[in-house]
């Protein structure tokens, strides 16, 4: 970014200009945060309630439609919020080509893990 010393301070500060975007990311982070408040509290309460259960009881709980839906929403909101947050962290601390590799990795891993989680829930929910 700062290759030649002869650029004026204004030119260096202006860089490549304003991206004219950024609100979307900020808003999505807030929306997913608001969604996660009730979902994560429900999850925490459920875990406490089912702490001593054996496999069959856990399976039955996850199989109920309400739990399946809420769990799906939780996984989706959680990975969306996590991806946005980790993206911000990478942008803050990485400034080399490594940044782009890390960003791609985070996006792809989040989508993949979210789908794996939802697939697992679906398998339980639709099991006979």
């Amino acid at each position, binding site marked *: 970014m700062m290759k030649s010393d002869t*650029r*004026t301070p204004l030119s260096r500060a202006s860089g490549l200009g304003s991206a004219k975007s950024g609100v979307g990311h900020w808003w999505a982070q807030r929306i997913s945060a608001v969604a996660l408040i009730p979902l*994560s509290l429900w999850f925490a309460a459920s875990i*406490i*309630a089912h702490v001593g259960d054996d*496999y069959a009881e856990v399976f039955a709980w996850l199989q109920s439609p309400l739990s399946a839906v809420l769990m799906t929403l939780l996984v989706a909101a959680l990975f969306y919020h996590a991806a946005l947050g980790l993206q911000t962290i990478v942008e803050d601390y990485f400034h080399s080509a490594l940044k782009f590799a890390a960003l791609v990795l985070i996006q792809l891993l989040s989508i993949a893990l979210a789908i794996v*989680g939802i*697939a697992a*829930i679906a398998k339980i929910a639709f099991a006979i």
Partner: protein
Amino acid sequence: MARGNRLQPRQVTTPPNAFPVSSEGIKRLREMGTTDRKPQISRKTARPVSPNIQIYRPQLTSVLSIINRITGVVLSFGAVVLVVWLVAAASGPGDYSVVRAILTSWIGQLFLFGFTFSFFMHLCGGIRHLIWDTVHGFELRTIYLGGWLAVAASVALTIAAWTAGLLMVG
């Protein structure tokens, strides 16, 4: 003086102590539309940069902010653990018992305790952030009260959650 009905460019003036410029140079400066100063003088050694995190005092503001970020990263790992647990639950009692054994081992419980505290810390910090996003609570007194409240609430909620969990089991 701005006149007429169009936006006027800034007036360009060359400061009195600037490098001497010919009238041609002044014309070019006006075309550029800026009052750019001299370019950086090239030096043998670059100037030092003053210390920042090495000497800046940790304050409630910066400490709670970095804790919010750290707990966020911890919870990201927790999300992966959640998916592993769901996959284990979907795969059958054999796989599930393996995951359960790891989670109920003393090291697993330690991690879960850490996750719980991170969760409540991030939740309370997140709520503080959401309140700030509505442009409320920016007075220093509110920032500090809210900060200590968030810490106290996180500790209290973690203890409450684990007490409840232990009561359920035993």
